[in-house]
């Protein structure tokens, strides 16, 4: 079977800065693919180009066998890619359950007339949305917090709520931008179990993360970006010992 996501020679410039230059990668199905690199290496830019927040200056994405040609943000979700954000972006004044329900939107259909006329189909669909949202909250371990406003949740819970919201779109690829940032050791361990479970249930994960212990322990393969270029790719053990990677992180030998 073909790779789930194939990025070919992705370029993105901001003025004179080459944020991504000729970045290519293949992400296989049901793997956890890590994307690491020093600050400013272009990891989040890659996410933004992939999800249509920015338009690439060059290159192409093939997703699930077809060319990914995104014109509006919701088409990314419809294609099967969902993401979370480096700085949490929940709908702060909606309940946890409602946040997850928003994610179901793309997989359901009742529109303005359905909402007003409320035929049996609409009512059944809305019950299903509710139910699915509850199942997902339970899946990420927030079953008891459904009615809490998103902004009132503790930090670690907000991170997991973002994942639940993304999962609600029924993605084939779940792109997580630093999900463990700011988490303590216990929260990180819970997160790791959750991510492994998501992968084992068949969803591919693309993971940006700075917590090296988590990345090395969790990822099946890793790509390293530095100054917008991919400098290494492979299994965690190989990447860890790669000379170019060590230089990017620790700096070159003093002359």
């Amino acid at each position, binding site marked *: 079977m073909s790779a789930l996501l194939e990025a070919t020679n992705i370029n993105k410039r901001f003025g004179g800065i080459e944020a991504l230059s000729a970045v290519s990668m293949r992400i296989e199905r049901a793997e956890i693919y890590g994307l690491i690199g020093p600050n400013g290496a272009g990891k989040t830019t890659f996410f933004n180009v992939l*999800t*249509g*927040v920015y338009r690439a200056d060059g290159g192409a994405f093939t997703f699930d066998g077809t060319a990914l040609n995104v014109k*509006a*943000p*919701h088409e*990314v*979700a*419809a294609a099967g890619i*969902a*993401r979370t*954000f480096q700085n949490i*972006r929940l*709908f*702060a*004044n*909606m309940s946890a359950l*409602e*946040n997850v*329900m*928003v*994610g*179901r*939107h*793309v*997989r*359901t259909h*009742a*529109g*303005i007339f*359905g*909402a*007003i006329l409320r035929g049996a189909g609409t009512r059944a*669909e*809305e019950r299903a*949305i509710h139910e699915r949202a509850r199942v997902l909250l339970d899946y990420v371990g927030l079953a008891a917090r459904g009615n809490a*406003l998103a902004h009132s949740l503790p930090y670690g819970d907000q991170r997991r709520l973002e994942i639940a*919201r*993304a999962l*609600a*779109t029924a993605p084939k690829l779940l792109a997580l931008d630093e999900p463990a940032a700011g988490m303590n050791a216990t929260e990180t361990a819970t997160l790791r179990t959750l991510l492994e479970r998501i992968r084992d249930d068949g969803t591919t994960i693309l993971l940006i993360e700075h917590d090296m212990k988590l990345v090395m322990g969790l990822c099946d393969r890793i790509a390293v970006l530095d100054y917008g270029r991919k400098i290494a790719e492979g299994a965690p053990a190989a990447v860890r010992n790669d000379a170019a990677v060590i230089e990017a992180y620790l700096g070159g030998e003093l002359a």
Partner: protein
Amino acid sequence: MDTFLQQIINGLTLGSVYAVVALGYTMVYGIIQLINFAHGEVVMIGAMVAFTVIGWLAANTTLPPLLIVLIGTLAAIPACVAVGYALEIFAYRRLRNAPRLAPLITAIGASIVLQQLAMMIWSRNPLGFPQIIPNTVYHIEGATITLIQIAIIATSVLLMAGLTFVVYRTRLGVAMRAASQNAQIAGLMGVNVNQIIAATFMLGAALAAVAGVMVGTYYGIAHYTMGSLLGLKAFCAAVLGGIGNLAGAMLGGMLLGLVEALGAGYIGDLTNNVFGSNYQDVFAFLVLIAVLVLRPSGLLGERIGERA
């Protein structure tokens, strides 16, 4: 005492209409921060379409009056929804990322276009709404309330309850609130934001259609300029309650209706008849000025969670 109660009843009737129209302003503002100044014209179109349908049915059939008004309303709703949708598609969508002044001026332009179109279709004369609802009068404590007033207040309460249900309990409402909090993130989570914005315009226009029928049957008259002043007053009501806030629009509408009615009822006594009840229209704008000076965010503020 009876003047007071009477003006409360009149004020609630008027306020019901303002509240329903103000909801249209506030919903659109909540989602794209645009003040849709053509909204008053949508109310006018609703009254005009209902006038045509009700007039024809009253002359050519023997259906019961309430049914005729109901059919007139049901005809006005799709017409207004179509106008609301057209406004969003042709006038506003292309200006979504333009500076905020551009869509505002477009809204004023659209309002002029709609007025002139209505004048061409329905003539420049005031059209007498057929008085088909029996003018039954009930007496309470020395004040009177008519059947039409009861119908207007009841209908608007039902509409407000219905809208609250749609916004807080349905898939569409969840998407509307998500888009109003952060359109980009809502988009990335799979919400087709353009569709939601169009739906918001259509919902507001449907409410406007009913408001048009209310005003037409209450005052017994429809005119192609009737939307301007009504629209401005409803806008004042939305600002009074806190624009972008649904509960605020309802509260602001009711309060404005009461202020106007009580003001008109007592201004003569208070000023030795120097000013009469024909100064009624002044109060809405006095309220607007007072709100903008004293509490620009409106009574219920603009707490982002309540926007839709």
